[in-house]
């Protein structure tokens, strides 16, 4: 996942915002309880910690963790912190669609 998404910051974030976001997340996901998430956060921070790193990521990043477009959606969805259910009308429509397809 894109390091900006991991840290939950915008592409125009400055050094201070990046650091604050990193510290917040590290507090929320300590390594002993969330080793994978912590690793992801630390790697994302290393990529964005200063302007030079951010520019290097922007210019020279050749990586993509996905193998197909749909994996982007899946990853994006699975990395979300929370999930909000649809409203009642929407779930009605969804279930009815499933029934008629």
């Amino acid at each position: 996942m894109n390091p900006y998404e991991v840290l939950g910051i915008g592409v125009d974030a400055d050094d201070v915002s990046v650091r604050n976001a990193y510290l917040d997340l590290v507090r929320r996901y300590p390594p002993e309880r969330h080793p994978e998430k912590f690793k992801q956060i630390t790697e994302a921070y290393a990529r964005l910690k200063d302007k030079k790193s951010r520019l290097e990521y922007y210019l020279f990043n050749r990586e993509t963790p996905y193998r197909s477009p749909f994996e982007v959606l899946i990853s994006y969805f699975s990395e979300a912190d929370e999930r909000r259910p649809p409203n009642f009308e929407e779930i009605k429509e969804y279930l009815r669609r499933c029934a008629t397809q």
Partner: protein
Amino acid sequence: MGKRKKRKRQKGHNKIAPIEVLEKKASDALQARKYRQARDYLKELYKRDKEKYLPDLIAAHEGLALQMINEGRFSDAKQVVDHLTELGATGKKDWLEFIVSFKQGDFVKAACTALRLLEEDDNRTESGEKLLMYDSLVLSFEPLDIAKISKQSSIIREANQVQAALRLVCEDKYEEAMACLRAISLSSPFSHWKLFVKGLIAFYKMEEQKARKAFSKLPDQSIPAKAAEPYLLLLDGPEGLKKYEKRADVLGLACWVADRKDLESVLPRAEYLWRVGRFRDSYAHVRRNMGGFPSEDQGIIQALSDFYLNAVFQMKERDAYRYIDFLDKMVARGRTDGIEKLMILRTIGLWLELTGADDPIVLSVWKDFLRWHSEVYGEDRDLQALVCVHLGDLFSREVPGDAPFFPLSGRARSRRPVVYNERLAQYCYESCLEIDPTNKQAHFSLLGLYEKTGQKSKINKKLDEIIELFPEDKDTLYKAGLRCMDRRAFIKGMKYLERAAKLDLLDMRVREAFIVCCIKAALEYAKRSKVERYRALLSKALEYGESDSDDFNLGHAYLYARWANFELLNNNVTDAEQLLDKASELARHESRFLYFKFLVGRLYEVPSKYMSSIEKRVKKEFSGRASPEKAMAFADVISYFQRALRTIPKWFKEEQRRVNRYIRKTAKGEFSQEQARVLVEYALQNRDEDLAWSCINKALEQNPDDPYFLFVRFQLEVGSFYGFVDEEELEELKRILSLAERQRDQELISRIRKTIQEIEEMACVGEIFDNHDEELDEEEEDLDEAVDIFVENLLREANKKRPGKQRKKRNNSSGATQLNLFD
């Protein structure tokens, strides 16, 4: 013939057809499930005798309606069901009416019909059909009136509970939803709905395991099971995608579940195109149908853009080339807007770098990128500088200068690296410094380039410039200090090195360089009898040295020994004696210290009157029975001076011979594996192959599986003739590697790996030549015989010269004289 005409003719034909014929045809059509034909014949028969043919006519209609439902022709099916009503049919007609309403999405009507059917409950309906009826009660999403249908009151209550639970889930009231579900028992016809709602609750509460468990237990083909598929796809990630990748309907619904309804019409198709290898079409499809694509902003569109523009680096060469060509054409035809053009140019630039495109092309793409970036975002000097340094690094990379070996001799040549494109690298770094004159990375990279190309005056100039700009940079100060030492500008060098040492006192490399610089400067002063100066310098050197170290540069014992010699140069005998006393107290290995003191005195040209006594002591040390400890000490000292001296004086060669004699004498006696290792290293350094062999053979007698001695033996046998290493020898080398890995001897492991790699590289080059030879053979079978003879002779000569093979044979015959590999 037109349909109408045909029907007319058929009607006419029926009119005259006898009843028996029509009956036969109708019966055959019914049996063959040709319900439309059957219905037409039976209609005719029905006109003649309504009572007799009504049941068959209804059966034909029912069959036809079912056929249409199965084919998804629900409105046609509805017309047939209406005919059934006109005919006054009952029984299956209601079920058909239900299924048509259900499939047409009229769930309220379907639920009403279902309730009627369930109320009648004539036991004719199958369990699957019943399940669908219960589902319709939920999907109607209408509060069902219990009073109307008293027989099914519990069912209605449960359907209402499922609806209420779903509503509560949508309102984030998960506990209340769970409470609603409690009213539904496991044996209830709504138990699968209960499981589905439980799955939903777990899904939205981020309890993925629970959700997965609930969804995967749903009965196949049920409506909740269908509705759970997109959830399972999202829960299982890329693994789930493998299962559903061909199901566009599930992918579409997954977009809906992921709250990205806008992607429902784009992503399933894009996924399909990507999966079948139509990468360009997939990009074009997304580009055409997704607003804001590609984007550099945050969000899923940005993530998709990143994917589409970086995926090329994971593609096979042919696909990547086509994909890049497609992107390039879009830019060339002006079909891209600011951001897209920028992103594409970046991708093309990075791709060209990887594929080894012509340097000017790479440069021009990045120039385009920078120009376009300025237009889109305004000037960003940091970004421009970074691109310049990146290109400078790309062009200043080192590449092997020579072919790895001369194929006919099979001999490895040293692969001295050369800078890939010095001119362009310098241009890029200088461009960067024009944009940002204080760009540290560019200064250092340019310095690195000068170092790689050996431009000494430019190196010195650049170092001074860098130190002025970055006075606190340890590495620059260190490098500048070393360069000053090279130029014999010792005082300046000391200044730089001391500053560097103060910045990091733990860096022994810097401290050692500072001490060496002090010693060199002190020697100059000692020779000019500037006593106070050399004393001050040596005091300074002692500050940065180590009191208990055996290092010849850092150890206080050895520094005092040097200082004593400087005093002797100036005839300060008392001072010298005091210093030597101090040194002797600190020295831990007497023979080692004595021999160092003697050699350093001779090197500093201490008058012979002060050297005679020590010379006698050294002579005594070398006499008598040889001991491995002393041999190691002498080897250590002489090796240090060999490394340190640029030109070796005549008398020193005699010392080398003396040490060699002593070590050979030692080699005849007993010694440990560790001592053998030191002796072998010494022998190899001095190209004394006989000595090396005797130590290796002895060490391997003690331990035949010692990887160090096996590897050295291999090296001595093969020499630099890697081109002639056969499979068996390579296997043996791999066995030695595994032995070294077991011992975790990292240095040895990396040496062996490097050798294996070089041998394998040679084999590849050899194969190329072999193949080329084969091609030549095919094309020119009548090659001049003289050439063959010439090549054969060369090969024979090369084999003769290859000492390893000879060595192998000689090893087998014990006591044979060994040839010197290096002569």
